[in-house]
């Protein structure tokens, strides 16, 4: 009874569908029979508009992946075949063969694509590929607190259209609370697709339906007001480190999960601001406009704009302003004004316009809602020290947090990290978290302890000295003694002549470690990206190769298989 092409589509749809999808379709169809016929035309409208769609994502902390997975499921529900791929797995050659492509991508660094998307990003920017036959849409994740909001996603969107591809929906720049945005966007996409095949008659009907589906995305992100309830330097006297355990209490319930991070926008320190005011001959009472709001200069410089280590980009904007040759490097504003003063009196308002806002810093949450309650959240902050021509300097945000006093107010938001979540209670986990990498694992262990999860837990911790740097030692000991922590290995690099790090301990326990992995354990790495996470990953590959006695390629493949199946997680910085 079905016409040829309908039958084809119907078959392809039905045979490609999973059991759940069939059940769903069954319900959907019977539902449709109740509705007026204009809607019936939707079904074929869709399939022809978006038959076979590839959803690719580029993610750092898993948010984009989460969105991409939702998209793909949503499309399947609409009976549209869809493949999903992480951009680091995506065969670039396939791009020219795609007909429908959805790109979900976050922005990292200072407006850069996530590491996983770099290959793809460069490929499309460096090559002239003809993509005229390609229909695409870009959903960009970002954080409006960053000067280059969703830059990477935007770039991809522009470039694809430059290459001749046809944009079937405008790029959506989505902020930290991206969920609602995402579902609105995909709804819109699906319905537009239908629209494109619709005759005007049914248009309104659809329009109605669409507007029902679209929840208006609320702008910005949830900012919590808290106070510093407790603050402890976890390092003992005579340590080279300064690591602060900070407990923040909030009136309202804080919604977060172990593995999430908290975002904080630091205030600049008064001394720096004073220096700059001197150079600019400001009193602080001046009214200045910034991002369509007027602030007192004092408030603006303390709370809103970044003064330390300005991006080269901004330095160059200043150079243009004062018409000077300035090397394209990062610099503190104070230095910039001191070394390259304007010849004519500088228009401060103009200067302020080129300056970028203080970007938030993220800190892994080290508490657990189950263990510490929902009105409290903990973080573990290493005071970041470095030296600039011989002078000891502190990192902006870690310094801000290090000097905060108990009782002081603080603002923060929750940065979800869907790529770093505890598995089901019965699964084993291996946690590798030297230094402040311990933070999310204190959260994990507290959570598992509070919920008496049955899965085994193995922790690798490392620092410089056992006596002074064993962060959360007594807490870890009680987890160990009560059995919540099944195994514990520590590496203190400077307690003996030869340096010992967590990866050495892992190697010493290679056989058992591999046993755990083979038994389905999830692996988590947290802490500094380089060199720690790099070395740890290399050792993991060595261990796998050694235990399976294969070469390192296949060991690496084994590891990325773990990653794909969501059993290998990194939260590194």
């Amino acid at each position, binding site marked *: 009874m079905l016409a040829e092409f309908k039958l084809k589509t119907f078959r392809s749809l039905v045979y490609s569908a999973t059991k759940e999808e069939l059940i769903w379709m069954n319900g959907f169809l019977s539902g449709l029979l109740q509705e007026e016929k204009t809607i019936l035309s939707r079904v074929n409208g869709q399939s022809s508009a978006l038959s076979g769609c590839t959803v690719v994502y580029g993610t750092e902390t898993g948010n984009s992946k989460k969105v991409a997975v939702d998209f793909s499921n949503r499309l399947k529900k609409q009976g549209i075949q869809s493949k999903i791929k992480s951009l680091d797995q995506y065969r670039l050659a396939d791009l020219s063969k795609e007909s429908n492509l959805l790109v979900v991508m976050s922005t990292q660094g200072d407006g850069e694509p996530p590491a996983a998307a770099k290959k793809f990003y460069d490929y499309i920017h460096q090559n002239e590929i003809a993509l005229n036959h390609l229909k695409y849409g870009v959903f960009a994740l970002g954080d409006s607190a960053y000067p280059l909001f969703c830059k990477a996603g935007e770039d991809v969107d522009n470039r694809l259209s430059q290459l001749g591809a046809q944009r079937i929906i405008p790029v959506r720049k989505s902020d930290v609370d991206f969920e609602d945005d995402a579902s609105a966007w995909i709804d819109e996409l699906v319905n537009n697709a239908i629209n494109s095949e619709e005759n005007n008659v049914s248009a309104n009907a659809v329009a109605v339906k669409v507007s029902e589906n679209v929840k208006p995305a609320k702008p910005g992100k949830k900012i919590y007001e808290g106070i510093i309830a407790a603050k402890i*330097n*976890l390092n003992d006297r005579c340590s080279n480190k300064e690591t602060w355990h900070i407990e923040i209490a909030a009136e309202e319930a804080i919604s977060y999960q172990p593995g999430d991070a908290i975002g904080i926008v630091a205030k600049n320190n008064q001394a720096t601001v004073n220096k700059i005011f001197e150079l600019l001959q400001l009193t602080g009472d001046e009214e200045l406009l910034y991002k369509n709001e007027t602030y007192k200069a004092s408030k603006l410089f303390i709370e809103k704009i970044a003064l330390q280590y300005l991006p080269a980009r901004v330095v160059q904007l200043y150079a243009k302003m004062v018409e000077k040759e300035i090397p394209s490097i990062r610099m503190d504003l104070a230095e910039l004004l001191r070394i390259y003063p304007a010849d004519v009196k500088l228009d401060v308002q103009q200067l302020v316009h080129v300056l970028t806002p203080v970007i938030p810093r993220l800190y892994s949450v080290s508490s657990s809602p189950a263990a510490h309650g929902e009105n409290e959240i903990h973080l573990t902050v290493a005071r970041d020290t470095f030296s600039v021509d011989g002078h000891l300097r502190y990192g902006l945000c870690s310094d801000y947090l290090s000097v905060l006093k108990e009782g002081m107010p603080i603002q923060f938001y929750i940065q979800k990290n869907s790529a770093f979540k505890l598995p089901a209670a019965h699964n084993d986990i291996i946690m590798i978290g030297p230094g402040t990498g311990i933070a999310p694992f204190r959260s994990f262990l507290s959570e598992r302890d509070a919920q008496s999860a049955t899965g085994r837990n193995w922790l690798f911790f490392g620092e410089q000295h056992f*006596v002074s740097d064993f962060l959360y030692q*007594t807490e*870890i000991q009680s987890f160990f003694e009560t059995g919540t922590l099944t195994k514990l290995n520590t590496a203190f690099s400077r307690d*003996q002549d030869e340096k010992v790090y967590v990866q050495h301990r892992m190697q010493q326990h290679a056989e058992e470690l591999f046993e755990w992995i083979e038994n389905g354990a999830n692996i988590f790495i947290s802490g500094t990206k380089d060199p720690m996470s790099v070395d740890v990953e290399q050792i993991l590959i060595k261990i796998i190769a050694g235990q399976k006695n294969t070469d390192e390629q296949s060991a690496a493949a084994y590891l990325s298989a773990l990653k794909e199946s969501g059993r290998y997680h990194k939260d590194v910085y």
Partner: protein
Amino acid sequence: MSESPVERIKKASDGLRGTLNESLLDEHTGAIREDDQTLIKFHGMYMQDDRDRREERAEKKLERLYSFMLRLRLPGGFLTAKQWIALHNITGEHTTGVIKITSRQTVQLHGILKSHLKPTISAFNKISLDSIAACGDVNRNVTVTAHSKVSPVYEEIFSYADKISAHLLPKTRAWYEVWLDEEKLAEINEEDPLYEDRYLPRKFKIAIAVPPYNDVDVFTNDVGLIAIIEKDKLTGFNVTAGGGLGTTHGNAETYPRLATLLGFINKDNVLKTVYEIATVQRDYGNRSDRKLSRLKYTIDRLGVDAFKTELEKRIGFKLQPPKHAELIHRNDEYGWHKNHEGKWYYTVFVESGRILDDENVHLKSAFLEIAKTGKASFRFTCNQNIIVADIAEEDKKPFENILNKYGIIAHTENASALRKQSMACVAFNTCPLALAEGQRYLPQLITKIETLLEKHQLKDEGIIIRMTGCPNGCARPFIAEIGFVGTAYGRYNMHLGANAAGTRLSKLYKENLNEEEILDELNSLLKLYAAKRTAKEAFGDFVVREKIV
């Protein structure tokens, strides 16, 4: 009454091995497992923690600052120059840096982290020093009079310290296996006829005194040997038994006791006799209440005669009546002295036995420089001092220069007689049993007492003052002319009336005094003493004669 937990731990320890190996591998803590904390004492070590740092570390979520104190087994307290150099280096590398001379003629090193224990011990092993049985329910470091100038037979007497120590060593190889990773050898027979698997009920101490010196406080030891020298020959020893000072506040059943003089034995019978005294204590000692388990209580329970009979049964001969031997004084003879062979000795005053370099006195540097010449040896005294020994005539001058260079001679000569006869125990911050300060406080108190002496024109009086942070009596305060025994932080019981020779115990005079009260009491006592003393009468004798105690 049931056996004390320590008895179970000893029996279950597989020759003092326990789970020490596992404890050393525990990565989550700087401590060792509970039973091992008892066993490690038998290996010459104590687990301690820095009591000054407890609150602060707890706040930081860090465990207590655990470390270990190591006590060397050093019969007679003798070190060669080569050994001194090694000791100096080990101390610098693995410990707080202070070499602490103990009131039993050996040294303790504090603050050794668990991860440093093996390196430390193997370093000592390389210079053939060990810490076996320096603590625990076994025979402890055997002490002997340090004043080697006394007579030609000194070397012979001295050699008994070593012989006795070796004879009473536990047979287990545990120390070598745990600390030096020695292979466990099946063929070695660890059968221990003396200690069996239960060891002694309590610590067991032996001292050898060479009259007229009683620097070892022979009567405060479980077993005392008083050398009998006739016609310049060592014929044998008067044997004493049942001395001990440890008491417990508020436990009336505990008391300090001077050893009972049992009789004389020929020198060939020494080993046998001390050995069998130990076996009697092993079989009859109290194993349920460790507060009442020292030999002194065993003897009082059995009665001296019954004890003696049992001993004679075991040694197979009768003790001869004691020979005449006169013990006169306990203080060290500071400065230069020459012995019968013409060798020179310099006895250095080391306040509280703490060898370190401070602003004005550089003891550590001095002794290192001396040791490096290879031309002297070192002897510790039971007054926590050190003797630079065996110096040839021609080397005396150069050594004198070194001692001057580092302020040692000035330090020794300028210290008042009072200070030079005083002694304090370790107490805070390492001793877990301390109720009050010891060596960290006595020096200040002495300074204040010196002013009192001046005030009463007693400036040059050497009164034996000893202070301990608790009633265990580690600096032997119950046999001092003035003894301070800690009761609570900043408070001390005051004991008076022992004699110079150390043959009479002191008596409790006042309880729970703080510094101000102590100084008031002393002020009036010294006033009285200055007024009413008979010529040359010692303070201890004075307070007894005046029935002040």
